[in-house]
């Protein structure tokens, strides 16, 4: 089997404080994985390690069979705070165009084919008509769609999507989930979800990270994950507290079902 992500005995610490310990998991190509965990549990850090932005303290990381750096150009990335730099003077079109930049030699402009790809991706996220607008004049949801177009303009084989903490409205969320499902036909997708209630129903596997990582190759939380993320007080049956927070029942383990 070919793997999109392979992580072996990886640890990472920041200023001497361990952030991630003994991370081991393999994600086969073509999966649609949700990465969850409590705030400060290391989700975003893990993604930055997978992207080679941070270097692991020990252990190995492979993306699409090679080191993260060698996979650049095949990776699409949507940073969590991509929408925050809103005063930057750039139009929707120019922002999306950045996705092609890694493929064009310095000093040369976009080819007709590059322009066509940028147009396609902007149309896909329904932002082509806004292409001349300044990024700062868009709503948060619209900005996020431009960033999706930019990541897709890379024509990636794997897409990392760090969802913003402030969630998009529910109809926007539904549309986004459908789009991701479409995209999943052509690429592996990893969505970092901060809002557990917004987990897409299209996911094929789940990983839960809180210093350590549990991976489950089916779209439901195991009791181990619940313990990892929300502490030992949960007895592995029905975590009433989580349900109270609105977590959909479909991703929770059934009563008495120990998962893996």
């Amino acid at each position: 089997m070919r793997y999109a992500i392979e992580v072996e005995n990886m640890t990472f610490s920041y200023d001497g404080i361990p952030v991630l310990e003994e991370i081991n998991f393999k994600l086969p190509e073509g999966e649609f994985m949700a990465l969850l965990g409590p705030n400060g549990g290391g989700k975003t850090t893990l993604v930055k390690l997978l992207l080679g932005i941070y270097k692991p303290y020990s252990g190995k990381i492979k993306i699409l069979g090679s080191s993260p750096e060698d996979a650049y150009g095949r990776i699409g990335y949507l940073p969590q705070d991509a929408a925050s730099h809103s005063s930057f003077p750039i139009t929707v079109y120019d922002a999306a165009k950045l996705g092609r930049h890694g493929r064009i030699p310095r000093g040369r402009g976009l080819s007709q084919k590059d322009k066509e790809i940028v147009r396609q991706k902007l149309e896909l996220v329904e932002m082509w008509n806004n292409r001349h607008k300044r990024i700062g004049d868009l709503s948060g949801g619209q900005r996020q769609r431009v960033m999706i177009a930019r990541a897709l303009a890379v024509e990636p084989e794997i897409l990392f999507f760090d969802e913003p903490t402030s969630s998009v409205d529910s109809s926007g969320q539904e549309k986004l989930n459908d789009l991701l499902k479409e995209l999943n036909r052509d690429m592996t997708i990893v969505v970092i979800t901060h809002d557990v209630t917004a987990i897409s129903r299209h996911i094929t596997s789940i990983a839960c990270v809180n210093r350590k990582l549990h991976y489950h190759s089916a779209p439901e939380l195991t009791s181990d994950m619940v313990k990892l993320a929300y502490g030992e007080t949960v007895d592995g049956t029905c975590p009433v507290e989580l349900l109270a927070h609105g977590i959909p029942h479909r991703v929770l383990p059934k009563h008495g079902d120990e998962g893996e």
Partner: protein
Amino acid sequence: MIEALQFEFFRNAVIAGVLTGIACGIIGALVVVNRIVFIGGGIAHAAYGGIGLAIFLGISPLLGAMGFTVAVTLVLALLTVKNKERVDTAIGLIWATGMAFGVILIDLTPGYNVDLMSYLFGSILAIPSSNIWLLLMVNVVIFGFLWYFYRDILAMSYDEEFGITINVPVKGLYFLMLLLTAVTIVLVIRLVGLILVIALLTIPPFIAERSTSSLSRMIMLSSALSVIFILAGLALSYSFNLTSGATIILVASFAFAVHYVLRAVRKG
């Protein structure tokens, strides 16, 4: 004002003003969009250590400031390359230590050096023609940097982490950008003094950032504004016999206030 142009020193000041404005507009725009204004402030104040060192050793203050500032900037770049936001301590330390170092070295130098004031507050009218050649060279280098790396600079400035994933050499660019910032700052110190350099480096790009929709246009507008502010300040300081650096900064601040009010009115 026009008759002043017959004096060589004034012609030099005008040429230096235009060249400084262009360099300042470009570098200022990069400093602002990369949100490293505070690092620029640290570099400017650390430069005083270089001036002190040069006066103590009896070498050219410009040369001393340049060497010292470039060295300090390299250290700063190494300390901040990994995390640009959480480096307040390092910058604050270099900011104050550089300044203190300069003051002590000047204390230790026998005799009083009049030239010192011109580094704190600038003296564009006393600019030697050798500085003009230096300014020209720096402009050429900055243009080359911008032309060759424009797309990478855009990607890095807008979203560094995305830039990394499309193979933009962000670390190398960051070092180059800081080095060019250091060199520009040292040359601008001559013009408006180290205390005011940050204002000249940031006010024009602040105005330009809000009024344009691409980085290249922001850079052009910010350079044009810098040149206008410098020349207007120069004319006013000559006519009313005021300190040139402070006059230039007040012209820029006034323009910023007008821009701000106009924008607020337009937005209703």
